[in-house]
């Protein structure tokens, strides 16, 4: 190991970067998404995936699921900064509480004829994808699954005429009886 560039003790060591999924409960008011997105861009943090939708209509609450990556220190900062925003009720680090359930939905359009078309159909059923639309030269498939599964599906379909992908980003929830 090379010597650190400082003669002082306890020089900062580079820390491993980890991927975290955060669930953020917010007031569903105008600008709240811009506030969250602005926090990430303004402070130089990453957003790998972001989904948002109102979850409790009567209380005007929305749930935002953010997937981000950073060192433990950066993740702590992100959570603290999110938590101090006025319309944020709660921030839960789903990754910290053990492996959370994560799902996303993808729509995949495949265009082709002949052998490719047959192969696309076969592969889609092997992945358990639903066929939402079919024409003489195309299919639109729907697949719900973990990110890795979606990635695998998309990679496979590339070989048989994939032309378009639309993904929702991740919705996540902790396992077990505890709710946030």
């Amino acid at each position, binding site marked *: 190991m090379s010597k650190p560039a400082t003669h002082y003790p306890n020089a900062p060591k580079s820390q491993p970067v980890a991927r975290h999924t955060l669930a953020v409960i917010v007031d569903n008011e105008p600008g709240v998404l811009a506030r969250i997105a602005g926090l990430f861009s303004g402070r130089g943090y990453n957003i790998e995936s972001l989904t948002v939708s109102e979850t409790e209509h009567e209380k005007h609450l929305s749930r935002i699921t953010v997937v981000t990556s950073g060192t433990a*220190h950066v993740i702590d900062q992100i959570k603290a900064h999110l938590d101090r925003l006025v319309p944020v009720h709660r921030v839960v680090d789903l990754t910290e509480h053990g492996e959370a359930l994560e799902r996303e939905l993808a729509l995949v359009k495949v265009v082709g004829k002949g052998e490719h078309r047959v192969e696309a159909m076969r592969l889609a059923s092997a992945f358990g994808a639903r066929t939402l639309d079919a024409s003489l030269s195309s299919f639109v498939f729907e697949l719900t699954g973990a990110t890795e599964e979606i990635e695998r599906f998309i990679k496979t379909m590339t070989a048989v005429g994939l032309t378009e992908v639309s993904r929702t980003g991740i919705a996540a929830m902790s396992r077990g009886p505890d709710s946030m």
Partner: protein
Amino acid sequence: MSEMMTGAEMVVRALQDQGVEHLFGYPGGAVLPIYDAIFQQDKVKHVLVRHEQGAVHAAEGYARSGAGKVGCVLVTSGPGATNAVTGLTDALLDSIPLVVITGQVPTHLIGSDAFQECDTVGITRSCTKHNYLVKSIKDLPRILHEAFYVAANGRPGPVVIDIPKDIQFATGAYSRPRDNQHKTYRPVVKGDLNKIKAAVELIAGARKPIFYTGGGVINSGPHASALLRELARLTGYPVTSTLMGLGAFPAADKQWLGMLGMHGTYEANLAMHDCDVMIAIGARFDDRITGRIDAFSPRSKKIHIDIDPSSINKNVKVDIGIVGDCAHVLEDMVRIWRETSPQVDKTALAAWWTQIEGWRGRKSLAYKPSETIIKPQYALERLHALTKDRDPFITTEVGQHQMWAAQYLHFQDPNRWMTSGGLGTMGYGLPAAIGVQMRHPKALVIDVAGEASILMNMQEMSTAVQYRLPVKIFILNNEYMGMVRQWQELLHGGRYSESYSQSLPDFVKLAEAYGGHGIRCDDPARLDDAIMEMIETPKPVIFDCIVAKEENCFPMIPSGKAHNEMILPDFEGDTGEIIDAKGKQLV
């Protein structure tokens, strides 16, 4: 009981209900209904500034010069709002509670690029603690009161309320809410007792302790300052403070080490570097404080008390982080200390003080005196000597004069020192002084300025004259943007690119043109008389103090260096060689 009234009337009524006495602002098309409502009452006094940036700084000075008040601003849409942005950012970085009301084009025109339209909530989202666009008259009373709660509670900050003109004209039901609380926003003020106990234990066992206090102690109110003094007395430990925290601990006290940081004293910085327990109270480990971060106080255990959880472990990892309001946490600390009455290591503490006295003996604030030209340090020493018995309020602009003011004016009480610390806004001092004088009409209020900074909001002289606010503008005129010049000397081979103040106005004539009084002095022997003339003139004064041109502000921790690598005023080497290539990239 609710009353029917227009949106504009609601704004004024809410301000009255919040106890607002002064409102700083500038009218325009999109706030005319509110100005009409102001015209028809006399509880809220409007102060007409000459530029919206001035309004926000004035409100900052107003809020900072005492406890318990939120600064209030009213400006129009478009340029009114964009001109306020610098002030908002300043207030956000220095945690100053403000409510800023901006007019907006009518709801149906929003998004149409209407005349004087801008996306105010979009522009101010990242420079406010929170902001609102009012879309319905039904929401207006709640938002108005909630804004005051959000601005003043937790870590204070500016809140913008953007009110479209049709909402100002609309009629709705107004009632004052029982409390103004936000429905969910509840910042933690009480610290975790177990952590406080652990902190007290760590403090009691320290051999080389230091209290490092910041603006949070001031923001927490006079009670926090009193508790800090009590804790310092109980422990006998040394105290240093950031630029923002000056006055929380009396500068006359023998436990006071002076300010720390880039232009802090030798004893404060060396004590920070060598301490074994650091107690950070309401301070945020800013880069002006820490210097080189990986060499910052390398051997100490650190305790950090802060109301903002995101401040803890942000720049420097601490051992005990306590989230809470300074006054609440200090109260618990003092109580636990009294209950347990721990025995501090007196021998170790005596040795620590001996070491500190050794550093103090280096006299890091010494400078070469002159009998022919006024040294800026001398000017401030004389200003301090001649004003200290009058309990003055000091504001500053930004640059060398600001650092010298922090070094040579000594503050005994909180809320006497208003300076732009976080954002470093040139042009802050004069409008801030106007805000201070508005709140304390009889007090001596001095804006220590530079000849470059003062020109950034010079127009506010008009405001001072209009409201008969006898603010004193004490310009240390060295004909340079002094700090820029100093950095060019240290970093860029003395190439003074655009930092010379060309074509300066005649400040004496300028003062007279505004209807104030002008004084010029370039003779050290005449300085005292000139300062006395300034103090005794019962109207706004511009004091043009001609000082040494190329004086550097020392001591200094050069960028990229650690606390124990300070340059002292007796430095004899080549100043251009101090900072290495890596340091040059820093700010």
